[in-house]
């Protein structure tokens, strides 16, 4: 029974609970049991709040929503520097989830401050890919993806700054969504790069992703960058699953050399599938997308160098070297030296340099101009087509350790996802099969204009339905990395 419950989608669980067939406590217990069974191998969580989750589930069963004024778990962002910090307030997304009666099982693992594509930059060790435990689950929201793909939780929450939801979703065989920038609130999300960060769901199905997307979205007066506009009808679109007459553009810049052949093969098949489902497919060049990665690696580190300045040991978190003889400046320095990992330090250095007087125009200023050009590429493309498609990542999940010492190789994992962060438009990754050479999942990325998030769901749902029926079941049924015969 437990195993069955964990195999249900969020939409199915929700319906079963509404019908009284299963209680929230039973659902929580099933997932907690699954976590207990596989977590030592998966390491998807930084913190599992079992007792709290059961207590909340009991209240959900009693129809008493649990609205906390303070969070009940530590927040570390996968970093040592926040050691011991318990936030005194809830993020808007957390508050909305709780109001929707969602039981929070725990906090998932991530690359430190969301900087990375593998969770190997977590100060607490990497998570593992449920398809192959020797491989990364992607990142930065790799813990969430691993937990959902490993059936430890029906839904996850991640943040996507350069692909941090879509890329792990793609390499774990999940649906991952970066909503339109400002579509949901950033209040309470510890910022990496403020102008790029967006919370969103990894989920096992397109419908589940849409349900979560809808629950966390909408204007928040506490975040002035959140959009004061109606939430796009994403759930209806996920149920529509129809692409007939839709104009779909293939971005030639996001394929070719450096892409794994199996990824390109699955991508081409997906495009043919869409055509066969009645979509009109054309090639739409986006000439500036090639500059997206370098622009991103100036803008994101610049913002991060400023956003992470507050972690100085003065007010909360880790404090190192405060022995009464050292100045505040020395304590700040020692704290940051000990508290941040190498990738975070690298990006702080990069960003500090890019913003320095004398370099600003050449680096940060230029990167912002590139950003404008990329937005214009999107605008021009969306005059011709309704959505754009590309592979989500150039390769499938790579082995743990393979790229850990090669930042450039690591950065390439976000090559296809970054343009939508720079332009702020909606983008989604949906599984489109397994790469023949390694048997690992491949993601199809669908990109839509700002605030047209419903379109990515409509296309993804059509792909999902067609592939599931062709396959005779969900793709995740073929993930055997965790199989130990426990069922």
């Amino acid at each position: 029974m437990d195993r069955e419950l964990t195999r249900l989608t969020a939409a199915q669980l929700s319906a079963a609970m509404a019908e009284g067939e299963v209680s929230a406590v039973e659902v929580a217990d099933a997932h907690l049991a699954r976590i207990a069974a596989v977590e030592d191998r998966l390491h998807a969580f930084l913190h599992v709040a079992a007792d709290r989750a059961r207590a909340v589930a009991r209240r959900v069963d009693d129809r008493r929503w649990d609205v906390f004024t303070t969070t009940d778990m530590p927040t570390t962002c996968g970093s040592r520097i926040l050691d011991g910090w318990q936030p005194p307030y809830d993020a808007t997304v957390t508050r909305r989830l709780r109001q929707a009666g969602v039981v929070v099982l725990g906090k998932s693992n991530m690359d430190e401050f969301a900087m990375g594509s593998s969770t190997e930059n977590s100060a607490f060790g990497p998570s593992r890919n449920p398809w192959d435990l020797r491989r990364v689950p992607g990142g930065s929201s790799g813990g969430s993806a691993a937990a959902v793909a490993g059936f430890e939780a029906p839904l996850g929450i991640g943040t996507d700054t350069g692909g941090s939801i879509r890329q792990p979703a793609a390499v774990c065989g999940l649906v991952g969504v970066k909503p339109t920038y400002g579509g949901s609130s950033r209040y309470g999300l510890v910022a990496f790069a403020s102008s790029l960060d967006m919370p969103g769901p990894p989920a096992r199905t397109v419908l589940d992703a849409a349900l979560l997307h809808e629950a966390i979205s909408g204007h928040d007066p506490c975040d002035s960058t959140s959009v004061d506009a109606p939430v796009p009808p994403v759930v209806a679109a996920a149920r529509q699953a129809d692409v007939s007459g839709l104009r779909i553009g293939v971005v030639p810049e996001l394929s070719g050399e450096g892409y794994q052949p199996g990824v390109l093969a699955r991508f081409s098949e997906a495009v043919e599938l869409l055509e066969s489902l009645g979509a009109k497919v054309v090639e739409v060049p986006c000439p500036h997308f090639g500059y997206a990665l370098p622009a991103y690696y100036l803008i994101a580190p610049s913002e991060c160098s400023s956003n992470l300045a507050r972690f100085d040991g003065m007010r909360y978190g880790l404090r190192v070297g405060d022995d009464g003889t050292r100045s505040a400046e020395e304590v700040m320095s020692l704290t940051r030296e000990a508290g941040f990992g190498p990738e975070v330090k690298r990006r702080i250095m990069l960003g500090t340099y890019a913003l320095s007087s004398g370099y600003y125009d050449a680096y940060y200023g230029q990167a912002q101009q590139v950003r404008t050009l990329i937005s214009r590429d999107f605008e021009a493309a969306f005059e011709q087509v309704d959505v754009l498609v590309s592979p989500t990542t150039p390769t499938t999940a790579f082995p743990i350790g393979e790229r850990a010492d090669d930042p450039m190789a690591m950065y390439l994992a976000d090559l296809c996802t970054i343009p939508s962060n720079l332009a702020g438009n909606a983008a989604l990754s949906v599984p489109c099969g397994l790469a023949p050479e390694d048997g690992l999942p491949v993601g199809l990325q669908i990109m839509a204009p700002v605030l047209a998030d419903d379109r990515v769901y409509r296309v993804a749902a059509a792909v999902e339905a067609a592939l599931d029926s062709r396959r005779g079941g969900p793709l995740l049924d073929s993930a055997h990395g965790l199989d130990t015969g426990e069922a």
Partner: protein
Amino acid sequence: MTVPTMPGVVPFSDAVARFDPVIGLETHVELGTRTKMFCGCPNRFGGEPNSLVCPVCLGLPGSLPVINRSAIEYTIRIGLALNCSIASWCRFARKNYFYPDMPKNYQISQYDEPLCTGGWLDVTVHDTPDGQPRSVRVEIERVHLEEDTGKSLHMGGSTGRIHGADYSLVDYNRAGIPLVEVVTKPVTGTGELAPAAARAYVAELRDLLRTLGVSDVRMEEGSLRCDVNTSIAPRGAAQWGTRSETKNVNSLRAVERAVRYEIERQAAVLDAGQRVVQETRHFQESTGTTSAGRSKEEAQDYRYFPEPDLVPLAPPADWVEEIRSRLPELPSARRARLQAEWGLSDKDMSALHNAGALNLVAETVSAGASPADARKWWLGELARAANDSGAELASLPITPADVARVSTLVGSGSLTDRLARQVIEGVLAGEGTPDEVVARRGLAVVSDDAALSTAVDEAIAAQPDVAEKIRGGKVAAAGALVGAVMKATQGQADAARVKELILGRLGQR
């Protein structure tokens, strides 16, 4: 390497005879909005340390700023009053530097896109060598909005500064209070008047801000803070000199002294063949001197960039016009109006200004006195009293309404000038309102014929020669007899009635 000796100072008159000073002022004003700049915390001075804080003004991870509309409105009000253009689109920027009293280690400020640009403020330097007031137009470079920092308290040590302190405490109550910075363009051509012009500018700005109702402008509480830039160059030189930036200038007097000292010091530096270093200096209230702080040449790089947590600010033109239409009468317009209404010369206005009596006179006139009477009392009797006690005119324990009442009593004949002075003396001594002092001291004018006739008869008897002249038709001689009666009655007699009585007795009516 030899360390250059400190050259000391050149006497001010000598310095300004040979060098032209250029000054510039950066004034920080804490706005009196109900809440802070980017959160809902109360904007209040005082309060238990760290009691007026929330996740936003503490810069906790994940918190986000939201712009306070009132702060924008106040800033626009200031910009309009300073004749600035109001940006139709501008952005906040982050100013990055590490300091424990800055919760995020960056300050949300404005950099190259300020809300208000390019205005001016006309100020009058009243204290000039020839006594003729002089008008100086101070050009305004920009007015921008930012958030204030917390406050560090350095405990132990002798200086109260961070160096040598045993430990430091930080109070974040002030963090996030909206702070407006008003930056002038360089002010040239004021010569020896430069220190007075700097002071006059800050005073005028303070009055303007108070009139606009945007700040309580208390320099002693730090709600108005001033940085003074000073440079000098040999007279007639084509280029300006290198400037110093003096901080910790926390009173009007300090503004004037800081500029004066910097002119004297820089003249000595140049006379010694050295060059003025571009640096931040601290004003020392106790000595009236400045001392070197950190050198700008090794100053930090603030790495400004547009604040990504806030959307651009675009005040609609009709809102700006609405704010403009609601501006109160500004101090300069009010002064011009009063000068015209009262029929005063520029010099008269300067006298009022120098005595700090302008508002007092205006309020006394509002309370019913004539402008001439109001001026007479405040610049005469009351100015003397203030001078004797070393107090400011405005801090004397007498209100404009009291003065107006005394003036009314004199006008109606209830008091003579001499009695009125005694009434004022009584009010200043804390004996009550003018009417209470009149009652307690029995100072009413005696106009009762029965009470006066004895004194009149005595005066006539005492000066028979004068009485004879009056009988002979020389009415003007009556003054001597009136004076005698007034003396005999200790000034309480109604002089006009006394004269009537005398003339009656001597057959002239």
